[in-house]
């Protein structure tokens, strides 16, 4: 492999200089622009409240929301932990259930043909409509929320991993057959690694859905006394017209979603960066 001597910079022509400059501006702009827009929006929000003398229980000023975040931090963070626990656990169960089922499906076309339609039924029925039933049959509050979030989150993992397990290069499968590989060897050395990019794609979707599932479940479970997650804080603050706290809880949910997405994107990048096309683009 040829190595380029970095010590003596080659003089660039005008076109290349321009390209280099554009690339540098884009790199900075990618971060600076959204931040600037956000600051501007917050500033406008504040001004609108002040100019129109909007009462704080309708729309609080950003500074009030920040105040609520700080003053109610004990309450809000314990609620955040509750929501995070449900989200994390249901995502974990979604991974175990989704991958487990797809491996089972990959073992036999018959199993897949028999059970896949039911997974779809579970997916397309809105969780809000199923929840009252779960509410009747399941007593434990945590189990209720978990089940609800799991139903929402497991399908993308199941569907993507099944697709991945079935998208193995035909020649590679022949190679395994030629070498007398057992079913288990084929699964472990060929199908699971080949399905990894698909699984990680599903995981990214499922991470967001698990949070949505957890929040929706809390909402539907309703009565604030029963659960203590962020969604309950939102409902409770709504009833009590503590709009600043409502906003604070909302911001926390939003941030949680962003952190989950970024973490899963990072995991995915680290696992695929050496070999998969999707991860290569980011390198250049």
């Amino acid at each position, binding site marked *: 492999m040829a190595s380029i001597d970095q010590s003596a910079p080659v003089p660039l022509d005008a076109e290349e200089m321009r390209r280099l400059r554009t690339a540098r501006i884009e790199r900075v702009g990618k971060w600076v622009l959204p931040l600037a827009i956000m600051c501007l929006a917050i500033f406008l929000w504040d001004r609108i409240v002040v100019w129109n003398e909007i009462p704080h229980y309708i729309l609080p000023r950003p500074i009030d929301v920040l105040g609520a975040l700080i003053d109610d931090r004990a309450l809000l963070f314990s609620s955040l932990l509750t929501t995070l626990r449900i989200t994390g656990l249901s995502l974990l169960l979604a991974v175990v259930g989704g991958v487990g089922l797809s491996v089972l499906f990959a073992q036999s076309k018959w199993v897949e043909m028999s059970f896949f339609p039911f997974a779809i039924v579970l997916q397309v029925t809105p969780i809000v409509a199923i929840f009252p039933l779960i509410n009747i049959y399941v007593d434990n509050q945590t189990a209720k929320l978990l089940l609800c979030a799991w139903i929402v989150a497991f399908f993308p993992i199941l569907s993507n991993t099944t697709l991945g397990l079935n998208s193995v*290069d035909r*020649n*590679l499968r*022949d*190679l*395994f*057959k*030629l*070498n*007398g*590989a057992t079913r288990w*060897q084929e699964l472990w*050395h*060929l199908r699971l*690694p*080949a399905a*990894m990019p698909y699984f990680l794609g599903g995981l990214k979707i499922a991470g967001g859905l698990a949070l949505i599932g957890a929040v929706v479940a809390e909402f539907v479970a309703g009565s604030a006394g029963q659960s203590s997650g962020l969604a309950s804080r939102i409902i409770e603050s709504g009833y009590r017209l503590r709009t600043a706290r409502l906003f604070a809880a909302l911001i926390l949910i939003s941030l949680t979603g962003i952190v989950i997405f970024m973490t899963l994107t990072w995991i995915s990048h680290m696992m695929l960066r*050496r*070999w*998969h096309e999707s991860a*290569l683009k980011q390198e250049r």
Partner: protein
Amino acid sequence: MKPPGGAPLLIMRAVGKTFSNGVTALDRVDLTLREGDFLSLLGPSGCGKSTALRIIAGLSSPTTGVLDWRGPPLAQTDIGFVFQEPTLMPWASVFDNVWLPLRLKGVSRREATPAISALLERVHLTGFENAVPRELSGGMKMRVSIARGLVTKPRVLLMDEPFAALDEITRFKLNNDLLELWQDERFTVVFVTHSVFESVFLSNRIVVMAARPGRVFEEVEVDAPYPRDEVFRTSADYAALCRKTSDVLSRAMDAPALTKAGAFDGVH
């Protein structure tokens, strides 16, 4: 060097393959593969060369006829296969890709290391053990694929148009290296190609096939001595052999299609 071709290794008798959609890919193929042969299957697209190769590999079963393997009973490790594409596992390193056939047999990394290092040296890939396929050029990927095909020390190496997708310079280089390996290791090769030049350069026997249905048309003996090198590639002998083979191939391509009953229908 003495011309290759020892005792019969595989005798194919009236081997045919008809797919479930009614297409007859192979029709009554009789072929004897001898120990140490470098045999090329040459023919236009759709003449059943790849189907024949898959049947020899055991990846596909013949509809009619028998495959009679001679000598000691054939083990799974006795057949190496090199596909048209490098067909490497993109997530695995060069070492792991070559190790695969041994690994599936339960050979540990440590046990396999000496053999794999030696083999990678033979295919000029020393130093690339830890590279993943995307870091390699097309030619290097093919070398990994050949090393993987040879890692079990097979008696027969089956190659399905392995160099078709490579540029000419790389192909010439790989042709030379493959011949060198073959002469040193003395395995038997069945090589599918649609290149007259490649088949003449490499093989001691060329089986020219015709299409609709796929069948053996004529066999050409390439009696030029080994080792063959760049001098041979530009010699008058080579040109004459290419012309002769080319003529046979043209006649094979002009051969009328046979209907099921064996009558000529003459429609192309």
